[in-house]
């Protein structure tokens, strides 16, 4: 067993312990569960609904629902999987009531997004536009495709775990991933040519 596996086992054991204590009414354990997962869950939900207050509301709702079902939750699964499953379902219910996006991508309007750059190569104005365009394209995916892409890339969930979160067969999740990438490609190929130099530079670093 390597260091990473040992760490994972320890964190799983810790999680099972926390859930046991939370079931018994231990508020400190509950608090710890919230603190462990709130950032990632909130970020995922915010990317799904794109509204800060609504994301907070959904995040809270997801935690409360997860706590309400703690007694029946099987610790054979990761708590985060269950939490994201509930969070995603609440998102879907809210998104159904909202009007979806319409119209074409507005590259200029989105340049401000993602100002916190992970690398110096992304500092230029064009690179900012590229990044904003990518996120805008993600926004245009259907909710299951968007959730799949976010969970896969941002949360390091495997397809099997995404299938649990989305409550879909594994093959459907793989199809969502495939179609999401195709759609991203389609949307992003509309980028102005001068921005492609950034893609190429970044591609060498990403690869």
């Amino acid at each position, binding site marked *: 067993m390597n260091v990473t596996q040992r760490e994972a086992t320890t964190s799983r054991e810790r999680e099972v312990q926390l859930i046991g204590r939370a079931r018994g009414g231990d508020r400190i354990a509950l608090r710890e569960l919230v*603190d462990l997962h709130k950032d990632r869950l*909130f*970020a995922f939900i915010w990317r799904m609904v794109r509204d800060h207050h609504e994301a907070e509301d959904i*995040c809270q709702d997801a935690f409360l629902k997860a706590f309400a079902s703690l007694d*029946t939750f099987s610790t054979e699964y990761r708590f985060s999987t269950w939490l994201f499953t509930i969070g995603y379902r609440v998102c879907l219910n809210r998104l159904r009531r909202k009007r979806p996006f319409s119209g074409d991508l507005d590259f200029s309007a989105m340049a401000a997004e993602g100002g916190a750059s992970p690398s110096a190569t992304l500092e230029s104005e064009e690179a900012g536009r590229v990044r904003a365009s990518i996120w805008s*394209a993600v926004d245009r995916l259907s909710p*299951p*495709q968007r959730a799949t892409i976010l969970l896969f890339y941002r949360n390091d969930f495997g397809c099997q775990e995404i299938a649990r979160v989305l409550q879909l067969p594994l*093959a459907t999740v793989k199809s969502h991933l495939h179609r999401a990438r195709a759609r991203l490609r389609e949307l992003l*190929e509309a980028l102005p040519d001068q921005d492609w130099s950034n893609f190429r530079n970044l591609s060498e670093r990403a690869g």
Partner: protein
Amino acid sequence: MRCEEARQLFDAYLDGELSPSLATELGVHRVRCAECRRSLALLEVSGHIISSDRDPVAVPDDFSERLLACVDVREHGWVAKVRRTLYFVGPLAAAAVIAMAFLGFFDRGRDSRVAGVKVEPTHVEAGAPRPNASAPYDREAADRAIDQWIGQMQANRADKAQTGESTPKPPDLTILQILEMLKDANEGGPELHHFPGADLNELFGPPDEHPVDDEDVEDL
């Protein structure tokens, strides 16, 4: 290798699932073909940005406090939800619960316990509709239905391209039927992703109140 073939390998390549020989072939094509080079670069960079970009928003500092404050407020609501779960367990469990309640089991640590989620004696809803857990899993039928639906969508898009008119969507009934089939398939199949015990329907109501999968949302 032609572009069409190359493009079919993009996903496997990005997921690291390509055999070494195909990866080499794709690599060679990539060097020679500007179009595919551009497409792959786009996908790689998108993946990189989506993975590593920081979010411009963060969960509020007092989120945990406010959430935990709700735990007490919603205590009774939770008990009500837990009650509903009991009809799955049946009258026997309810009787056991009542017996335990008589023994004072649930009065321990009442102030701090999460919503007393453990239990409350309750009536059992007899004859409540149940998901059809015994329906045989028919993966092939579900796949055929999906293929049919995709075919229909593509045909509609082709019509639209030819006539220049706005294309009517596939009839809702068909989509609903397919979703229904997928749900049925989900009930008993080997690729089931239900969480034993914890049932989403308990939290969200029956499945037909929410979309299971909505490929069509982006087109709405």
